[in-house]
């Protein structure tokens, strides 16, 4: 595991605390890792199919939401 350090302003930190608690995350760190992972899947799907690719393939199938 690599350790990354970065600074965020106090206002954002307050919002992070609030949202991660409301979302039921055990810690702010868990929440941040979750959203970073999700965005990475979207922007850099790598070799595996991204959720976006899958969604496109299923698009138009009237049976699904």
């Amino acid at each position, binding site marked *: 595991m690599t350790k990354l350090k970065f600074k965020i302003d106090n206002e954002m930190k307050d919002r992070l605390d609030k*949202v991660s608690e*409301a*979302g*039921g*995350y055990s810690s702010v760190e868990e929440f941040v890792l*979750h959203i970073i992972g*999700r965005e990475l899947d979207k922007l850099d799907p790598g070799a*595996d*199919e991204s*959720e976006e690719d*899958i*969604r*496109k*393939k*299923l*698009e*138009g*199938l*009237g*049976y*699904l*939401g």
Partner: protein
Amino acid sequence: MKRRDFLKKAILTPAAIAALSAGCGKTTGRSGKRLIVLGVDGMDPSLVESFMERGLMPNTRRLKEMGSFNRLGTSNPPQSPVAWSNFITGAPPPVHGIFDFIHRDPATMMPYLSISEVTPPDSTLNLGKLRLPLSGGGVNLLRRGTPFWDTLLDKGIPVTMVKLPVDFPPPAANKNGLFLSGLGTPDVRGSQGSFTFFTDDPRSISDNTGGGVIIPVRDYGDGCYTCRVDGPANSLIEGNPVMSVEVKAWVDRESKAVRIDMGDASVVIGEKQWSPWMHFSFSALGPISTVHAIGRFYLKEITPKFKLYLSPINIDPENPALPISSPDWYSRDLAEDAGLFYTQGFPEDTKALSRGIFDDDDYLSQANIVLEERMSLFHSVLSRYQEGLLFFYFTSLDLNVHMFYRSMDPASPLYGTTDPRFSGVIADLYSRIDIAVGQAMELLDDRTEIILLSDHGFAPFRRSFNLNSYLAAEGFADISSPYERNNDMFACLDWSKTGAYGLGLNGLYINQAGREKNGIVTADDKRSLMENLKTSLESAVDPLTGDKPVKNLFILEDTYPGYQMPPWAPDMLVGYSRGYRASWETTLGAFPEGVITDNMDPWSGTHCISPDICPGSLITSVRNMPENPTLTEMGSIINSILTDGEEDQ
């Protein structure tokens, strides 16, 4: 083509001389038996009975009087890919491997379409940004098992299967076989049908664009909208950028018409008019590699807002970018005879109606085009049919009944808001299918039989059952991120506390240790968990109606005993009661608030329920059909008819 017409053409066409010489002198030495099988997706036996009674299906009634009418046992679950695979292979899902529209890879928990897959090349030659495929890659049919018609082909009996479901890509060329792929065939973007909607109306533009893309466009004062049409991804270039073509739409607001210019082609259409099929060429590598496709425009509105719909970009049957027929010239041959046609598996644009891009009139005009094209294709195929098996598939009854069940169901939450003008839509569709039956019956003689069958029937879809939300509410699944409840693919779940999850239209899975990516349920605990789920779900009650939404919960190993289940198979199948279906959110793994809600989507009919509630139909000129026939038996019955019973020996 009739023989006389063919001979006339042969005299006048030099090219036909070669064809004639190739065809002459071939004698099959067979009995020349003929069997026409009309596969009408979703034709409901109760509705057939009712419409025959009302005199709306005189040909079908005549067929029934010649032979028999039966309810046809469907598959479990009664979904078209599963049911038609049962028909094709004569075997249940554990053999052909199709259990739902949607499967999931337990290693990644990612859902995928169960029918076919596109695989990238194994190796490529990289030249700068160029990626030239060297080996591997292609389209694979995921249905397994042996199709019943292989027996006929082996015996030299001609087989023609047109718009055959779950058969994309089609089988390898056989000198006695003609195949055109149906359900499961994608559009050129690789989706099951993705429309494009160009508009300068910001209210139309929302994030909820499932089923298509909405492209904002603007008139800069010269009456011209520049519309970029996206095609497939270019796999020959690094990063797979999307290929696109530019279309210019010149509007005349006074005459309420638009001229659409694309390359050298131009067409003018007025409001509420459809363009003919237009050819799109997406250049992957200059003139060396081009993807050919077709699409149709529909001018929904020109004032006060510009609204131009473009159908999903279909594979061009005259120049297919992916294999859609076998032999490959067959799709071109049909298109030249019957005109261009929708090649995508689900041609009716139900999503455009569900998303409000179409209103009921727009949708019906599009669905009407689909049915007219299909009738024209049927006429073409029928006129050149000589002997052996002819299977022809109609999709219209299924998709249109899905969309308009509300027009004949007073209990539907949308019945009151559906214009009474549409109350006869379904009856009209059945009577149009009856016309096709009549055309086939004109060929009946002492060596010809007809079978009219459907894969399943229909039921109303009034109430949505949020299966995953139910599992969470009852403690079978654990939600760790409540604000992600509405996101797909189990975004809100804590897998370490989740025992079961729902995906697809009927699938219920155990989060099994050693199989699922984050599995926790051991093999020892699995059976008791499934039994708990069965007891729980079968006793659930809809507080609004007092009905039980789940009629049967099928444990797969009990339903199909003795079969080895593939890892993508669900562990259980939810057999919903009449009036209920898995909610839209359930199908892709979301957990919305509330367990049972009204279904407010125009998609108001369903068959993804308990199979005993929605059997298919079987009407045939063949006498002595077995009692209580099922779809899995039909292939063997067909083979037996065409081989004079040899199949049974």
